[in-house]
C-alpha cells in the first residue's frame, strides 16, 4: 500500500513545489524536467505496487488515520487498481514528455495542473469510500476543466459546458450517496458490498450515481460535452482527457455495479449497459466519420470506443462471466494507449500541416510519415485488427459470446462497431495516401515528438503478441 501511496504523493508534492517555484511570469525551465522525472518515479512505485499486489494476488486495505471501519475512510489496493495506477502514470509520462518538447511552449500552469490530475486519478483509484470518491471526482473534473482552459478563449465555451455538466453530474452522484447513507448509514464500499439489498431505494440510488458517472465518463447517451472539450484542449491535454479522465468515472461505475450492487440489480442493468454500448459504437462512430476536424474525429472515436467498454461491462453484469471483465479492462488499456498516440499525432499534424481539418491530411504519408504511421497504427487498433491490443480486447469480448447460441446476437454489435470504426479510421488514413502537393517547403520536424506519438501506437500495435499471457494475467488481476 505504501508504494501506491508514494505513487500518489509524488505528483502531489511536485504540483505544490512547482507552484511555489512560479516566480516570474516566464516559465521556469526546470519545472517540466522535475514533473516528468517525478512522473517516472511515480510509475516505478506503481510498478512496485503492482508487483507486490499481483504476486500475492491479495487485496490490501488501509484505514486512513488508523481508525476502525466503517468510521474511517478506507483505501483499497487490488491488483487491478495497482495496474491502473501504473497505467495513469505511464500515460502521464508519455504526454509529459511530449508537452516538454512541444513547440510553441505549453503554458507553465500545465505542469502543476497535470500533476494534480495525476494525483486526483490516483486518489480516485485507491479510494473505497463513496463520499471520498465524490471529492476525487470533483478534483478530477476541476483539473480537467482547468487544463482545457489552457488553450485560451476559444476553449472557454466548451470548458464551461463541461464544468457545469460535470458539476450537475457530481450532484446526481452525491444525491445517490445521500440515499445510500440514509438507507445503510455507511460509506465504505467494502462494508456496503455485504449489506446492500435489491430494494427500491438502493436501485434508485445506484441509478442516480450511474447517471452522474456516465455523464462524467461521456458514456452514451450522456457524451455530448466530450467532443468539443477534447477538440479545443491543448494536444497533450486532449490525450490525457481521452486516455485517462473519462476512464476514472468508468472505474467507479465498474466498482459500483461489479462489487457493490446486489447481483439481481446488476443482472437487470446489464442489458441496458450493453445496448447503450452498441448504440455508442454506432452513433459515435458515425459522428467521427462525419467529423470535419482531425481532433473532433479522434474525440468522437472516444465516444464510440467507450461503447465497447460499456458493452463489456453490460455483458459482465448480465452474463456474470469473468472474461468480460478482462475484455473491459483490455479495452481501457488499449484504447488509452491508442488514443494518446492519436491525439499526439493529431496535434503534430495540426502544427506541421497548419490546419485542423481532416482534409488537410492529404498526402500526409509523404510529408509526415512517422506521425501518419502513429495515427494509422493506433487507428488499426481501434478497429481491432490483429495483432493490436484492440483486437485482443475485441477477441476476448467476441469469442465467449459464441459459446452459447442465445448470446450470438450481441456479437452483431461488435460486428457493427468494427465496420463503423473501420469507416472513420480509413477515411482519415486514405487521405494520407493522396499525392502530396510537391511544392511545399520541407518542414522542420521535431523527430522526438513524432516518435513519442508513435511509441504508444507501437506498444498497442503489438500488444496481442503477448495475448495469451496478458489475458490469463488480466483474468487474475480483475478477480477482485
Amino acid at each position, binding site marked *: 500500500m505504501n508504494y501506491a501511496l508514494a505513487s500518489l504523493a509524488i505528483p502531489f508534492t511536485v504540483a505544490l513545489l512547482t507552484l511555489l517555484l512560479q516566480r516570474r511570469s516566464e516559465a521556469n525551465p526546470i519545472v517540466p524536467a522535475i514533473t516528468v522525472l517525478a512522473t517516472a518515479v511515480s510509475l516505478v512505485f506503481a510498478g512496485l505496487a503492482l508487483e507486490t499486489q499481483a504476486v500475492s494476488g491479495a487485496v490490501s486495505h488501509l484505514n486512513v488515520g488508523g481508525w476502525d471501519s466503517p468510521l474511517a475512510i478506507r483505501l483499497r489496493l487490488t491488483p487491478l487498481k495497482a495496474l491502473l495506477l501504473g497505467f495513469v502514470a505511464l500515460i502521464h509520462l508519455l504526454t509529459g514528455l511530449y508537452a516538454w518538447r512541444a513547440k510553441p511552449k505549453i503554458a507553465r500552469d500545465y505542469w502543476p495542473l497535470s500533476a494534480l490530475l495525476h494525483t486526483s486519478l490516483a486518489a480516485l483509484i485507491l479510494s473505497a469510500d463513496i463520499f471520498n470518491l465524490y471529492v476525487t471526482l470533483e478534483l478530477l473534473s476541476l483539473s480537467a476543466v482547468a487544463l482545457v482552459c489552457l488553450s485560451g478563449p476559444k476553449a472557454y465555451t466548451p470548458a464551461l459546458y463541461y464544468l457545469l455538466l460535470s458539476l450537475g453530474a457530481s450532484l446526481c452522484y452525491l444525491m445517490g450517496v445521500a440515499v445510500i447513507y440514509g438507507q445503510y448509514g455507511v460509506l465504505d464500499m467494502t462494508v456496503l458490498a455485504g449489506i446492500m439489498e435489491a430494494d427500491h431505494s438502493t436501485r434508485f440510488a445506484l441509478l442516480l450515481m450511474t447517471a452522474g458517472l456516465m455523464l462524467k465518463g461521456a458514456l452514451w447517451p450522456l457524451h455530448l460535452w466530450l467532443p468539443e472539450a477534447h477538440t479545443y484542449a491543448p494536444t497533450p491535454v486532449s490525450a490525457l482527457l481521452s486516455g485517462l479522465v473519462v476512464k476514472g468515472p468508468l472505474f467507479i461505475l465498474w466498482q459500483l455495479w461489479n462489487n457493490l450492487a446486489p447481483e439481481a440489480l446488476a443482472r437487470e442493468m446489464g442489458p441496458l449497459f450493453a445496448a447503450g454500448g452498441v448504440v455508442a459504437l454506432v452513433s459515435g462512430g458515425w459522428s467521427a466519420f462525419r467529423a470535419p476536424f482531425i481532433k473532433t474525429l479522434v474525440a468522437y472515436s472516444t465516444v464510440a470506443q467507450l461503447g465497447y467498454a460499456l458493452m463489456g461491462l453490460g455483458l459482465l453484469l448480465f452474463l456474470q462471466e469473468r472474461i468480460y471483465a478482462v475484455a473491459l479492462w483490455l479495452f481501457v488499456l488499449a484504447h488509452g494507449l491508442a488514443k494518446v498516440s492519436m491525439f499526439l499525432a493529431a496535434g503534430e499534424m495540426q502544427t506541421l500541416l497548419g490546419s485542423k481539418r481532416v482534409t488537410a491530411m492529404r*498526402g500526409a*504519408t*509523404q510529408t509526415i*510519415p512517422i506521425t501518419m504511421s502513429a495515427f494509422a497504427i493506433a487507428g*488499426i487498433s481501434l*478497429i481491432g*485488427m*490483429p*495483432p493490436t491490443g484492440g483486437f*485482443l480486447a475485441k*477477441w476476448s469480448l*467476441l*469469442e*465467449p*459470446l*459464441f*459459446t452459447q*447460441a442465445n448470446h450470438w446476437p450481441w*456479437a452483431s454489435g461488435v*460486428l457493427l462497431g*468494427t*465496420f463503423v470504426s*473501420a469507416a472513420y479510421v*480509413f477515411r482519415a488514413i*486514405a487521405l494520407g*495516401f*493522396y*499525392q*502530396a502537393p510537391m511544392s511545399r517547403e520541407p518542414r522542420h520536424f521535431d523527430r522526438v515528438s513524432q516518435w513519442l506519438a508513435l511509441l504508444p501506437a507501437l506498444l498497442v500495435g503489438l500488444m*496481442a*503478441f503477448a*495475448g*495469451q*499471457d496478458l*489475458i*490469463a494475467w488480466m483474468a487474475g488481476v480483475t478477480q477482485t
Partner: protein
Amino acid sequence: MNWTNALPVVAVFSSLLPGLLIFALREQQQGLRTGLNLLGVTVKLIVVGVMLWGVSQGLDFRVEAPFLPGGALILHGDALSLQFVSLSAVLWMATTIYAIGYLRGTPLQSRFFGYFSICVSATVGVALAGNLITFLLFYELLTLATYPLVVHRGTREALDAGRSYLAYTVAGGTLLLMGIAVLHALSGSPQFVPGGYLASVPARHGPALTVAFALLITGLGVKAALIPLHGWLPKAMVAPTPVSALLHAVAVVKAGAFGIVRVIYDVYGAETLEQLDLTAPLIAVAAFTVIFASLRALQQRHLKRRLAYSTVSQLSYIVLGAALLGPIAAVGGLVHLIHQGIMKITLFFCAGAFEKTLGVHRISEMDGIGRRMPLTMSAFTVGALGMTGIPPTAGFISKWFLAAGGLEVGQPWVVWLFVVSGLLNAAYFLPLVYRGWFSIPTAEWPEDHQPESGWETRRMLLLPTLFTALLTLLMGLLAGSALGPLGWSQLIVAREFPL
C-alpha cells in the same frame, strides 16, 4: 530452436525485415534498396528450396509461440503451404525485378517497395499459417499492406479503388474473424490437420458449424473474388501493373483461394462437409463465377480489366476443384493455384510492358503490336493459350484434371462447364493474339519510348516476362516430372485423401 523450426520464421522475415528497412531509406538510395530486395529474394528462395526438399523427405518444419488462449501462433511448412510459398517466392523475385524496371524514375519508391515486401511476407505467412488464428493475423496484415500499393498513384481514381478495396476486404476480414471466433469457441484453434480437425465436434453443433462455414467462405470469398464479392478487383486495376500482377497472381486473390482450400480440407475435412452437405452452394457459386466472369471479360475494352475478369473466372477453378471433394479434382484445383499464377502474371507483365513502352491501355490499340514488340507479344501468346487451355501449356493440365475430377465424383456437368469456359476463354483471348500479330497498326502508338539499349522495351520489364512465359511452357511439357507442380499437388492430395 533447431534449424527446422527456424526456417518458417526466416521465410517470413526474409521479406519483412528488408521491407521495414526500406521504409527508412531515402528516395535516392536506389542501389541500397535494390540490394536489400535482392538479398531478401535470394534468402527466401534458398529457404524455400530447402523446405521443399525437406518436406519431400518427410521433415516437419514447425514453430509455435503463444498468442491467444487456445490459439497459439503456429507457422508450419507442410506440403500444401509450400505449394503456395514456392509460388510466392518465385513470383516475388520476378515481380521485384519487373517493378524496379517499371517504376524507374517515379517518386515514392521506398514506400512502394516497403509495402511490397510486407505484402509478400504476409502472403508467405498466410501460406505457412498453421492454424486459423495465425491465418487471420497474416490475412489482415495482407489487407493492410496491399492498400498502400493499390492507391500508390495517389490519384482520385486510385483512392476510389482503394476505398472499395478496403470496404470489401475489411468487411470480409470481419466475417472471417467472426467465423474463426465461432469455431474457436467450439474447439479452440488447433493446428490444421489433413482431413479436418472438426470431425470430433459433436453433431449437435451442426448449425454452428454451418454458420461458421458460411462466415468463413464469405470472408475468404471476398479476396478470392467469388461473384458477387468480386467488385473490388476490376477497380483495383488502377494500381501500378506490378501491383496488379501481385494482386492477381500471388498475393491477395490467392490468399483467399488458398484459405478456402485450407478450410475445406484441413479445418472441416471432406467427411464433415459431406455430412453437413455444405459444399453444394459453394460449387454453384463457383460454377456461376466461372461462366459469368468470362462473359463480363468479353465485354471489357481495357486490356487490364479484361485480364481482371479473367482472373475472377479462373480463381473459381481452384475453388471448384477444392469444393468437389474428390482427389482428382483437388489435384486440378491445387495445380491451377500455381498455373494460374504463372500464366496470369505473364499476361500482366506483358500488359505493363505495352503500357510503359507504347502507352497502350485499350484492346483496340493493340493492332499489330507484335511487329513492334515481338518478344513480349510471344510471351503474351503463350499466356493466352495457356489460359485457354490449349496443350501443351500448363493451363491444359489444370483443366484436364478438373474435368476428370468432376467425372470422378459423379458430376459430369463439370466437363461441360469447362468446355464452355474454354470456348469463352478462347473468345476473349484469341482475338487479342490475332490483333497483335496479324492486324495492321492503324495509327501512331499513343506514346513511344524506345529504350537506348536497343531492346524492344526496358530489359527489366522483358526478362521477367520471358521467364514466366518459359515456366508456363515448361510446366505443361514437363508435367509428368515428380518435382513439378503437378507432382507436388499429387503429393498433397495423397496426404489429404489417405486412400
